[in-house]
């Protein structure tokens, strides 16, 4: 089975985020960049399928030269090769533009199955995997937490929804987006890291016009960024529990009015 995994390099969840002087982007100085955590679940699942059924795992990203680090991480985990769109004219698009670029690249790769993380933890558009399925003309399941194959083309997958789980019957080709809980991603082994250095990363140019999908084609524009509303610590109670707790409950009731 040929499986493509769409990935993105993003600031680590532990990173402090500062807003750049233009007030509409973030300051990249000293921000640790990592493989998007949800993409790790997607890649892990793709690798497990390959291990069980054979085939190839290709990781695909749209991003600058530096984003190759994220591809190398994937290759070290076990992916076979990487594909990247480095042309800056294709960068900075919105979720729909990025989905069109990915659809274009994936058509050339002809995968049987596409995995994505459910969202990237930077701009949190969470629409890319689904829009990608629409542009490919494929079915999709988002927020997948479990996959059970009945044969090489058919599976039942589970997805998380509010208050429950939905079981979805799928037939390949399909786009799946990974939710946390799907699996426990492996760490790259030393051998994997060494092997990754020799695996190919190919730079490709999409055939779709950059003006319609990159920054120039955005349907939505970030006009301002601000830190979250400041919040200062309130009162801290350190006394005897038997005295302090009733006091706090009274404040919740009469001052905060949340009881």
């Amino acid at each position: 089975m040929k499986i493509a995994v769409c990935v993105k390099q993003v600031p680590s969840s532990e990173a402090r985020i500062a807003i750049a002087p233009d007030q509409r982007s973030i300051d990249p100085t000293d921000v640790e960049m990592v493989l998007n955590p949800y993409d790790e679940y997607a890649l892990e699942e793709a690798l497990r399928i390959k291990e069980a059924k054979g085939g190839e795992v290709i990781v695909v990203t749209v991003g600058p030269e530096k984003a190759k680090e994220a591809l190398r991480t994937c290759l070290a985990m076990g992916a076979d090769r990487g594909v990247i769109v480095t042309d800056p004219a294709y960068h900075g698009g919105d979720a729909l533009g990025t989905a069109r670029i990915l659809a274009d690249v994936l058509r050339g790769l002809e995968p049987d199955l596409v995995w994505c993380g459910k969202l990237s933890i930077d701009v949190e558009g969470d629409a890319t995997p689904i829009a990608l399925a629409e542009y490919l003309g494929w079915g999709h399941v988002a927020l997948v937490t479990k996959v059970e194959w009945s044969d090489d083309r058919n599976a039942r997958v589970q997805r998380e929804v509010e208050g429950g789980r939905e079981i979805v019957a799928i037939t390949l080709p399909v786009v799946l987006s990974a939710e946390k809980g799907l699996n426990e991603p492996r760490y790259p082994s030393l051998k994997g890291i060494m092997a990754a250095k020799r695996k190919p990363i190919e730079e490709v140019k999409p055939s779709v016009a950059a003006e319609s999908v990159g920054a120039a084609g955005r349907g939505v524009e970030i006009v301002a960024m601000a830190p979250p509303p400041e919040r200062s610590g309130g009162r801290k109670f350190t006394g005897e529990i038997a005295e302090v707790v009733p006091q706090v409950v009274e404040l919740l009731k009469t001052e905060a009015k949340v009881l």
Partner: protein
Amino acid sequence: MLKRVLVLAEQREGRFRKSAYEAVGLARTLGSEVHVVLVGSSVAALAPQLGAYGATTVHTVEDPRLALYWPEGYAAALAAAIEAVQPELVLLIATAMGKDVSARVAARTQAALLSDCIQLELQDGALQAVKSMYGGKVFATVRAQRLPVVATVRPSAYPAPAPGSAAPQVQALAVALPEAPRAAVVEVAQHEQGKLDVQEAEVIVSGGRGIKEPKNFELIEQLADALGGAVGASRAAVDAGWIDHAHQVGQTGKTVSPKLYVAVGISGAIQHLAGMRTSKCILAINKDPDAPIFTVADYGIVGDLFKVVPVLVAEIRKAKA
């Protein structure tokens, strides 16, 4: 004011989700005509209820294949309604279903997509939203560059209005559904009955590393019960396998803003704080007086959670009695 807003009202098993009323209520404040598309196997009888929240016209799309969620079927229904209504704004709530259908339909209709908005308003004729990014570390103002716009709004960001008594026009909409479903829901497994989802709850009680072991989550549940709230968890508790990921609050979980957030045995890692700092009121219980969680808490109790929580449960029950 926009001329026409179209809402997809989410129902499951013949009942509206709270989000349906929230979406209709918000649409009413943005547009003069509020059209609603209602999708399911047999849903026409539900339609009149939506008038009370501001729907002027309800378009029903009924088919046995739409009884459970089917992304392409629901997308076809919404796309047909867009074709019929020609709205400037298509509005959904950012639930699992809302995010799913909105992305497909925005891609299909080449609309601008504003997803998971905390605020959505008209600003000089353009739709403008506030979105949380980087797990709540940044609030971005995002403006749509064209109409129509497909937007999803975070659950509970706009509470449903008090119902009135207006009756909507109801009409059936014929939709050509795709031939064979390639990915359709075949079964729904409900979580435990009566358990609230963290994103829909007005009160959340979350447990963290300080809980020490999974069975101690009973304490968190008791406190959540006393407050009528949902059970949440920090990433540490989820990664330790003590509780399902559906409960996780923070950057790789859910971003929440309930009326009251109670953090129990949570030190307050940056990615957790980002996910809950917009809560209206925060109460933290932690034995470490220097825990970062106290820097965002309105009320902090420094003490052993195993001693504090039982007393707190009793006092809350007393206060609410």
